[in-house]
């Protein structure tokens, strides 16, 4: 801690706001970031040329995103010094990522399943069917006793099929 800032000396161990990240840590983290970048590029080029295959679907993008996630975590922990900082800042950071996940998942629930419920258009709700049945009964009652030749199944559709012996 700096000499001309004595009031922070008393509690800088648990304060977290003025931690000086050591040169060794900064250089190690940078080395790891470079190595991970090379790794992700090499993996992508190998997959593009067909040398390796991470599987269809989420495979290759999953590997790339995990490597990117590790890199982002390294930057946040050491370069942004979240590791030595107030937990409140880490919480704000993680909450923003949580909301991104919520954002993505809910959007995917909408877009990801479109066209999978097309059969629903042909179906009718149960109360609609009941309503139509009640309407039909009402109409039927209006015509009861008026029709000299009541409409029966036989007059409309012809005689019933003869059951096979």
């Amino acid at each position, binding site marked *: 801690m700096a000499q001309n800032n004595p*009031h922070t000396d008393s509690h800088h161990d648990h304060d977290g*706001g003025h931690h000086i990240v050591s040169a060794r840590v900064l250089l190690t983290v940078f080395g790891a970031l470079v190595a991970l970048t090379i790794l992700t590029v090499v993996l992508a080029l190998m997959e593009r040329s067909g040398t390796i295959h991470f599987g269809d679907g989420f495979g290759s993008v999953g590997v790339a995103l995990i490597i990117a996630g590790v890199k982002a975590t390294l930057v946040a922990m050491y370069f942004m010094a979240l590791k030595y900082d107030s937990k409140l800042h880490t919480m704000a950071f993680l909450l923003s990522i949580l909301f*991104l996940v919520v954002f993505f998942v809910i959007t995917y629930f909408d877009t990801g399943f479109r066209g999978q419920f097309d059969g629903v258009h042909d179906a009718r709700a149960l109360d609609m069917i009941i309503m139509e049945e009640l309407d039909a009964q009402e109409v039927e009652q209006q015509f009861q006793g008026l029709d000299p030749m009541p409409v029966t199944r036989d007059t409309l559709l012809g005689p019933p099929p003869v059951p096979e012996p």
Partner: protein
Amino acid sequence: MANTTSITVDHPAHGDTAERPPHLKSYFVSSDQQFSAAKLGMWLFLVTEILLFGGMFVAYGIYRGMYPELFAQASTQLDTMLGATNTMVLLLSSLTVAWSIRAIQMDNRKLALTMLISTIALAFAFMVVKYFEYTHKFELGIYPGAGFVFAEGTSFTLQGLITGAQTSAISAAEHVGAYIPGDHGITDQRAGLFFSLYYVMTGIHGIHVVIGIVAISVLVVKMWRGKYSSAWYTPVENVGLYWHIVDIIWIFLFPLMYLI
């Protein structure tokens, strides 16, 4: 969190003088309180930055889920090595910013200045590479904006995209010269979807880099005039945080755009 519970007041313990350091605003009890308030504010701003880019990342994820082959094909138009170079440049610039904060914490103003100026140089290098990438695509006829608008009257519904829009999108794209089959190896008529996301996401990221250059330049001028020391370097710390977020966003942009 310690600052919010236990407040250390500048100097009054010594009793004799109520002298306050020049950087300390009247409405803060101590330098530490002022520092943590500024830093919390910066983090809340960074949260909004993450959510700003998050919307675009969600759009990317949804559309990539819909058209995985389109994204794989269109992505081959991006130069992986230029993208990787830019990733390294940004990672190095993050290191120099972190080193500059470390230097000013140890009152090494000269080193802090050198590191900040290196950061600006690296940011410019990033933008120069970006410039060459963009102009190369313009030469291929891959433009942002108008070239990728679906044909007029085309419904933007999913159904419209899948069936009706295909032919009209080709004719519209051919009309403005944006899409020529076989010209650059793109056979999918809706490749504009990928390049629209590419231009918007890298473009807004690029704007953030430019804003970062301006902010760090202000730091350089003020540090040159001796405004910062280990007793007060809050702006250096906060601009540093901003620069790291710009770096983190690129860390995700790079594999998603270049490495499909």
